[in-house]
């Protein structure tokens, strides 16, 4: 038995730089695999960990999706500052038509839609699901309504307000309502919700770091003996850290993918009622899911959090383990 390698003479300097690099790549492969196997060795408890991380990520991510959708929704309605005039409930059909006709002559008005009480009741019972309850009513509680679409030149909030004041005092008008109002409120609400989502995201991101960190801490403790041995044969902290970092990375990756699945399934589940709801508002709106870049971003953030959590935990705990 003999070794006749040319590098045999470089006894304790270790290997050449390129060989080291190649070995490093190989080590990474081995350790990535080992980290993965560690996860698969204990599938149930690790699945629980991954699930917890996924849910923690799904909450802020889901909220963010809803907010994004809310924003597109409010934007598409920004220009549509329609004014609804609810007429006196006793107004006759001819009175209603007369008022509509006079409004159509107003230079600021583009279109006027007349919604008769019968029609309104029919639509309402068809769409709201209260058909049975509505059938019990003796008389139609809905007033005749005029929906006024101002000309495009008259849709700014200020002019809309002016029109509103102008229309409010017309004879037979019970109540005038600017649809922009609730768009504005929606905006304010969205802004608030966005802040809340950021705070939630931050808090839950921190929670993910702690979850991963704690899981890695346990894993370091479980492998205490192994760490002592590799330290004794000259392993650096970086070498010991690597498999744990990979474990953290795998947690993040699996949790990211699972989180994505949770979100997609929830969105599919929500899509039908949302479309119906949008229909009530004569809107073609349907929920937008995660785009490809967003999906990748989500999984990327998840991997990053896994890696970071593991990094923060492993360094400290490895340092404390010294061979005896």
């Amino acid at each position, binding site marked *: 038995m003999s070794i006749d390698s040319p590098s*045999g003479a470089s006894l304790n300097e270790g290997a050449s730089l390129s060989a080291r690099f190649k070995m490093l790549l190989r080590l990474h492969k081995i350790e990535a695999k080992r980290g993965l196997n560690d996860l698969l060795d204990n599938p149930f408890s690790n699945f629980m960990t991954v699930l917890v991380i996924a849910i923690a990520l799904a909450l802020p991510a889901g909220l963010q999706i809803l907010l994004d959708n809310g924003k597109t929704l409010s934007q598409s309605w920004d220009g549509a500052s329609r004014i609804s005039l609810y007429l006196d409930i006793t107004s006759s059909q001819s009175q209603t038509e007369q008022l509509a006709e006079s409004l159509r002559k107003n230079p600021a008005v583009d279109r006027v839609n007349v919604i008769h009480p019968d029609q309104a009741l029919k639509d309402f019972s068809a769409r709201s699901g209260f058909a049975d309850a509505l059938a019990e009513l003796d008389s139609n509680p809905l007033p005749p309504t005029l929906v006024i679409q101002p000309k495009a030149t008259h849709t700014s909030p200020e002019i809309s307000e002016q029109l509103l004041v102008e229309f409010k005092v017309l004879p037979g008008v019970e109540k005038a309502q600017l649809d922009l109002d609730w768009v504005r409120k929606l905006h304010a609400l969205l802004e608030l919700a966005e802040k809340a989502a950021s705070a939630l995201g931050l808090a839950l991101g921190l929670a993910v770091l702690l979850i991963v960190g704690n899981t890695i801490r346990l894993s370091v403790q479980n492998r205490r003996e192994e760490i002592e041995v590799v330290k004794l044969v000259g392993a650096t902290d970086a070498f010991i850290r690597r498999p744990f970092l990979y474990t953290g990375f795998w947690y993040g990756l699996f949790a990211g993918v699972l989180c994505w699945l949770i979100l997609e399934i929830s969105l599919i589940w929500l899509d039908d009622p949302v479309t119906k709801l949008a229909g009530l508002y004569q809107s073609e709106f349907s929920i937008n899911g995660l785009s490809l870049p967003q999906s990748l971003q989500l999984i990327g953030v998840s991997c990053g959090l896994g890696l970071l959590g593991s990094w923060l935990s492993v360094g400290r705990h490895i340092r404390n383990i010294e061979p005896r």
Partner: protein
Amino acid sequence: MIQFAQVSKRYPNGQDALRNVDLEIKSGEMAFLTGHSGAGKSTMLKLISLMERATSGQVIINGKNLNKVKRRKIPAVRRDIGMIFQDHRLLFDRSVFDNVALPLMIAGYDHREIGRRVRAALDKVGLLSKEKNTPIMLSGGEQQRVGIARAVVNKPPLLLADEPTGNLDPELSAEIMKLFEQFNQVGVSLLIASHDLSLLAQMHYRTLVMKEGRLVQDQIDDSPGINHGEEFHERDSDMGFFTKDGLDDLPDENLVGDSSGHHDEY
């Protein structure tokens, strides 16, 4: 190779494990360290491998003053020392091959080189056929030989062994000692802690006796052993494992004691 100058070690619990120990073990020397348990043998080995730090005095290994080695540099020091333990300290979830390969993987060797060196080391300890087994499938003696293969695979100039035969019967112990002699014959320095007096009596090497943290006896045995050239020429032929790296070119006197830098050569 190993130099202790006025080394004392006091553990945090107040126990004085070493008191003013002076010692020199030259490059290529093989020495036994004996004494009752608690006499300071293990502490001595721990100071050399930087598992502990001296409270006072200087420990110089391979020309390096260990007092000056920072925490980050400890791994580099340990790579130059092969360590063998009574309880083997193998990783039971990995194959024999992977266990022996560990020091090389840490040092970043190319995997073909690792394969060659691991097989050479396993061949040396007679376990080449068991490389795919896990340590749990091996007997105690075989496990210890895996531990030895792991200690020498990186070709360190110094081997430390802490009660390497503690759990083995006399026959297996003698086999292990024979292996140690063979490593020594190619220039590796060895310090072996053992309280197996009957075994020491059969071996004729320098024996350091410790008592209550002091070195009380330092006796160089003149009977047949390392100093006798004919014995190691006789065995040179089966030392392929180390010799191909140029160790067989070393002049004999280097093996007996002159520490003047021969380790630089390998």
